[in-house]
């Protein structure tokens, strides 16, 4: 017999937890969270540094503390969850196949599914770094797990490729553990991480950040012994003569995060080529009816506070959907268009009838902009024009749209977001 729940949430990390709490608070009582790890909290459990929760709780928490705030709400609200449980498949009809050692493999029929599986790190293989394939090469998150959860050091002389936030955090963490972090090399001319992490994790420890540099060779047949770093040109090709060799016993990679959407694909969910996450509307609903997405599986966030905020919305709309309060095809669809520096928008479409009074549109830019304007166009008419001192790829940006402003433009077809110099 098939188990039935109103809402099944795939993933018990920050997104899944916040979505569950919001759905419950919106009046949905039949919720099940499926978590593959042996505890709730997701990747926050290995993020033992502070800096979480400034927006949500107005205080600085560590990752486990931030997770704990939500885990407590989940237990207080008596929301059901299963740990050590892997979701194997999601069908377009919202039948979720899951498995664990106690229940075996089982099917759940869900009225709504919230995708909250998070993301994974880009591995060495996907970066086409030439050289040997020895031990001692880790993605930064794997090293973070080994150090913070397992309590083991992956090396003592470290080179880091990529300046994503996890890499920056691990530069500091490894240094505090007595390792020598020789440098962080970044392929792009700008960092992919938060400014505050560059200051607090590199500058404060005199760890050099070399922009427009990459690894061009890895030495060591069994264990890594050295890497060669070279500067790259504007086409990201290594420049001959700029090679520098660094001995090391550990290479960490922090070269981008990829939303984990293999399950979404099995459900027939359409993915964005830019974010790698589902294409969603204003309700954070995918093209598959009753399947919602939030957090890093939707698009990679910079701060967990925004994950929680987005997930709350997904939980609320999923609860509404279950109650039949969301019109099936809300009728009119306005496309959100990203151009001139704006890489994508979440959501990608909106229905002015279904949207809340205020709708947050999140996006990232493809380059560093100084003293530039974030502009919003309703078809050809510019309706927002906000100057920002700095806009960078490492930080997520947002604009707010008002329902009543949209209501005054009944013929509106496209909303465009742009970065403008003037």
């Amino acid at each position, binding site marked *: 017999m098939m188990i039935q729940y109103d809402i099944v949430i795939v993933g018990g990390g920050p997104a899944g937890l916040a979505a569950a709490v919001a759905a419950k608070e919106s009046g949905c009582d039949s919720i099940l969270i499926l978590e593959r790890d042996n505890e709730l909290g997701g990747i926050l459990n290995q993020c033992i540094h502070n800096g979480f929760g400034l927006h949500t709780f107005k205080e600085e928490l560590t990752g486990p503390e931030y997770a704990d705030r939500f885990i407590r709400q989940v237990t207080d609200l008596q929301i059901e969850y299963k740990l050590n449980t*892997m979701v*194997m498949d999601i069908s377009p009809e919202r039948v979720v196949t899951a*498995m664990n050692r106690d229940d*075996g493999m089982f099917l759940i029929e869900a009225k709504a599914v919230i995708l909250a599986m998070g993301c*994974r790190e880009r*591995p060495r293989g996907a970066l*086409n770094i030439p050289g040997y394939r*020895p*031990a001692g090469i880790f993605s930064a998150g794997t090293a973070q797990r080994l150090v913070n959860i397992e309590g083991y050091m992956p090396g003592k002389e470290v080179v880091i490729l990529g300046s994503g936030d996890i890499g920056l955090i691990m530069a500091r963490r490894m240094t505090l553990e007595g390792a020598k972090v020789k440098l962080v090399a970044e392929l792009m001319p700008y960092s992919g991480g938060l400014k505050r992490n560059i200051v607090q994790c590199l500058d404060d420890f005199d760890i050099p950040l070399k922009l427009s540099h990459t690894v061009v060779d890895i030495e060591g047949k069994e264990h890594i012994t050295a890497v060669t770093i070279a500067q790259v040109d504007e086409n990201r090709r290594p420049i001959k003569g700029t090679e520098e060799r660094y001995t090391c016993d550990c290479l960490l990679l922090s070269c981008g995060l990829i939303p984990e959407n293999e399950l979404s694909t099995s459900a027939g969910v359409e993915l964005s080529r830019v974010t790698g996450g589902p294409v969603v509307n204003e309700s954070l609903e995918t093209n598959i009816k009753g399947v919602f997405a939030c957090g890093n599986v939707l698009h990679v966030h910079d701060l967990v506070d925004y994950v929680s905020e987005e997930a709350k919305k997904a939980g609320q709309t999923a609860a509404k959907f279950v109650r039949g309060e969301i019109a099936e095809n809300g009728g009119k669809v306005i496309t959100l268009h990203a151009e001139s520096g704006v890489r994508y928008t979440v959501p990608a479409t909106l229905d002015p009838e279904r949207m809340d009074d205020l709708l947050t549109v999140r996006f990232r830019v493809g380059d560093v902009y100084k003293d530039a304007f974030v502009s919003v166009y309703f078809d050809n008419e510019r309706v927002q024009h906000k100057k920002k001192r700095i806009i960078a790829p490492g930080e997520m940006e947002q604009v707010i749209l008002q329902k009543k402003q949209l209501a005054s433009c009944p013929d509106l077809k496209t909303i465009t977001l742009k970065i403008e110099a003037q």
Partner: protein
Amino acid sequence: MKIKLLTPNCSLLTFGRKNKVFDVMIIGAGVIGCAVARELSKYNASVMVVEKNEDVCAGTSKANSAIIHSGYDAKSGTLKAKFNVRGNEMMDALCRDLDIPFKRIGSLTICTDEADIPALEELKARGEKNGVPGLKILDRDELLEIEPHIADGVVAALLAPTAGIICPFKLTIALAENACENGVEFMLNTKVTNIEKTDEGWKVTTTKGAYLTKAIVNAAGVYADEMNNMVSDQKLTIIPRRGDYILLDRAVDGYVRHTVFQLPTALGKGVLVTPTVHGNTIVGPTAFDIDDKESTATTAQAIAEVTEKSAISIKALPTRQVITSFAGLRAREVGKDFVIGEAEDAEGFFNCAGIQSPGLSSAPAIGEYIAGLIREKYALSEKETFVATRKDIPDPSKLSLEERNELIKKEPAYGTIICRCESVTEGEILDAIRRPLGARSLDGVKRRVRAGMGRCQGGFCSPKVMDILVRELGLSMEEITKSGGDSTIVIGRTKDGDE
């Protein structure tokens, strides 16, 4: 405390056998050594396989195109042609016995110029002479029907329906395991340093002591020349030829349906594009002659070359979905053909040298042939207890829901997913470690059950697999390696890690 595991049928010898004279010592536990070992295990003889790495299938056998050639390519009359065609014939029955996947998907050798069609005809004639069945030349329309993403420039192709794909790890490991279960002994982490003729037979000196044996099989891959040259005046020279490959995500599965070769032209040999039995797509190899027999490092130039050349065969192949790149060394002997058989001036020394492509395809036939020579020479009798079949590690994804739940009820470890990309359960990993010649490292686990072989390349599962290895082998985390030797993963505890 460390516990040294001795598997029931298969003792890992370390010391204390110095007085024993083996009937046969096989140097090298690659696909050739293991194929010979398995064939020899059909007879009453004491057989020992010596391997310098920590696992079987750790050299050329682990890094190649993973294909079974039909046999049209090798020049008629060569050993390559003979053993390739015979090996191909043997593959179905062998893979059934060993319970491993083998798919005859067929190969296409494409050409991009009408002027080259006679060259295709020539290949076809050569293949027919070699005894390859079913060869056919297809025009572009016929080609498009069976290979829809073929590149625009392709005008014709030679179809070889008997070509197939196989997992070289599974084949080598299964051969070794079956040989082991039939009484062949394996000594891993043991390098042969000297071979000399004595009155009592061959004396093989290794890093773990010296052993006496009546016969030696030289299956030492890129080092087969060094072994031969210790005993024979008919010197061999192996110049390794490196081949770089890229491997694409299983998300690309179905894009390419056959093994697609490029007809060699004046511009070079081209690369192949092929699906693997696991649903990945492999592109490669390059061909660089090198002098360092350990140099399996890839280069940026080679990866770029492979990626670019794939476009000659396949239109818009999603090469951005690469999950890893690697290089393997072909054991190319300067005489170009395989060197197979007893050395003329060294009685009882049997060469399997110069085994480059089509070595994987030829392996079962080489095993059969060499074991036949040894059986004849030493009048070996057949072993009545020989068991030709073995069961592979069960793949739960092939079971029905009910069967799967039955398995989990019996063995709850089959309910825990360790590698999420390839959906590998803890039960499979435990089996991989516990069976004869079981996995001892992350790569050993990876090659047996694919944990860490997927799109995250072990990012999530490697700490978990390390935990399992620690538990099962009674080792510390610091002792767990990627692939034996110095390839340890962690160097020690953090400051406040538990002692």
